[in-house]
């Protein structure tokens, strides 16, 4: 077990640029800037880095070592899959450190969207035997695919667009007071229902943003963390994986009925809480991967904050609100309204909450949950503590 043997000691980020406006910086430059900021924040030198733990295929470690001047790499690995691994990459870094393979490990995520937007990314996938089974249907982006799950959830449990609206509005309310956020004008219920339907039942405000930017964190041993500049953020558990029943999920659509209208996180959630030795009721603040409002609702169910099918009423009770909610969610404004850097903004916000320096600080936040993107397995989760 990795519990309490490692910690996040450094945090660095570029600004969250509107999609396509980070040029002429290159993607590697954004990554490098976030890494340099993170080592500086930690009170380390870039030469101290000896490992990289990525998700979604990661970046070119050789190029990063060459350009940043990192003398020796001892660990370089990535989780498979896509955005599902954003939280789990931290667990991968911990595994490397606990097993003695590396000492100062970088986890970094970054986007730079030029000609190809994330919103239509599946239309740019190569023609493969697997893709042939969904491409003819005109599912050109994850937003189309996840809307199929949302409709099924509405059918099974009576979830409504009012519930999706509450996720969008509560998240926006957090962005309004965050100077780093991309969308800072308040959103009313009327604003939500006036928005165009992009993939009925999902409207514009059910979709996350598409930003350019990079976020990096530095993970090291709990022992080394004690002597560094920042108060360590303890890593209680970081898990990734998922059940075969979820599998390729949105690219497959043959999940059994009980898991179709879900986030695919149930198996990881169970393992994560057990590994951390805490319960859902112990979590003070949650950063839930919000590529789509409906998937926030389904993750709240899969992580056991409410019963299966009760996610709609749960959010409508005000439970995820920063002020007065029993589980403040996406306190920076989330990917829906603050910034989208493939889930790493959620890691950043959890670290800032536990350091006590968040823009929308949750009082006495001790335990934070971070989730990776509901997508093909592996999906992932992370529990941090101060």
């Amino acid at each position, binding site marked *: 077990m990795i519990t309490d043997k490692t910690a996040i000691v450094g945090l660095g980020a570029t600004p969250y640029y509107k999609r396509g406006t980070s040029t002429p910086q290159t993607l590697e430059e954004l990554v490098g800037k976030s890494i340099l900021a993170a080592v500086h924040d930690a009170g380390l030198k870039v030469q101290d880095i000896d490992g990289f733990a990525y998700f979604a295929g990661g970046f070119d470690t050789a190029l990063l070592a060459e350009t940043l001047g990192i003398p020796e790499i001892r660990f370089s690995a990535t989780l498979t899959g896509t955005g599902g691994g954003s939280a789990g990459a931290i667990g991968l870094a911990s595994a490397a450190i606990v097993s003695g393979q590396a000492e100062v490990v970088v986890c970094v995520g970054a986007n730079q969207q030029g000609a190809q*937007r994330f*919103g*239509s990314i599946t*239309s740019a996938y*190569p*023609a*493969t*035997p*697997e*893709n*042939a*089974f*969904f*491409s*003819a*249907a*005109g*599912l*050109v*982006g994850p937003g*189309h695919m996840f*809307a*199929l*799950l949302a*409709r*099924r959830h509405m*059918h099974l449990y009576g979830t409504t667009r009012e519930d999706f609206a509450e996720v969008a509005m509560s998240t926006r309310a957090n962005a309004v007071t965050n100077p780093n956020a991309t969308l800072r004008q308040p959103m009313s219920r009327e604003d939500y229902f006036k928005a*165009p*339907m*992009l*993939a*009925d*039942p*999902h409207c514009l405000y059910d979709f996350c943003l598409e930003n350019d930017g990079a976020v990096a964190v530095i993970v090291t041993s709990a022992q080394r963390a004690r002597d560094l500049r920042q108060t360590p953020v303890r890593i209680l558990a970081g898990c990734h994986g998922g059940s*075969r029943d979820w599998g390729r999920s949105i690219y497959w*659509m*043959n999940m059994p009925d009980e898991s*179709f209208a879900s986030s695919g996180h149930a198996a990881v959630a169970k393992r994560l809480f057990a590994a951390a030795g805490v319960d859902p009721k112990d979590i003070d603040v949650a950063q839930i991967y919000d590529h789509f409002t409906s998937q926030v609702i389904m993750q709240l169910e899969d992580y056991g904050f409410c019963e299966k099918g009760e996610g709609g009423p749960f959010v409508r009770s005000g439970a995820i609100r920063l002020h007065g909610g029993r589980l403040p969610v996406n306190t920076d404004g989330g990917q829906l309204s603050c910034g989208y850097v493939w889930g790493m903004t959620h890691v950043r916000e959890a670290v800032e909450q536990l350091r006590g320096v968040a823009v929308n600080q949750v009082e006495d936040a001790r335990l934070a949950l971070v989730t990776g993107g509901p997508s093909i397995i592996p999906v992932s989760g992370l529990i941090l503590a101060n």
Partner: protein
Amino acid sequence: MAIAKRPPPELFKLATNAWTKPYWDAVARHSLVVAQCTGCGTCRMPPTPFCPTCQSQQIDWRTLSGLGEIYSYIIVERAILPGMTEHLPYVPAVITLEGGGGVRLISNVVDVELADLFIGMKVMVVWDDLAEGVAVPRFAPWAG
């Protein structure tokens, strides 16, 4: 009211392998088939090299009636790619195939009033020939 059209055909480029080719060859002949494990009878979609239940590689190709039921659907009314506008609105859907042992196909419901769509709606396969030897199955409301 609006009638569901078909998505832009250029989004689809057929690629096959030894396991999926019999399915697409059948589709080109306007026949809907499903891969069924010879050993244990489990059906799978798409066709893959192993049965996930018993790991056998033996397949029987079972011909289906073409009837199905809408398991879930969405309505695409906004273009997110150039050239999409004339194809709007269209309805991507997940269809449970009758006699398919529970397998579902990702397809479209076409020629239906959008307001009439519902989960559980009975549908029947219709065939769109896209190129020489290449077709795709879509589904239209079925009155029985």
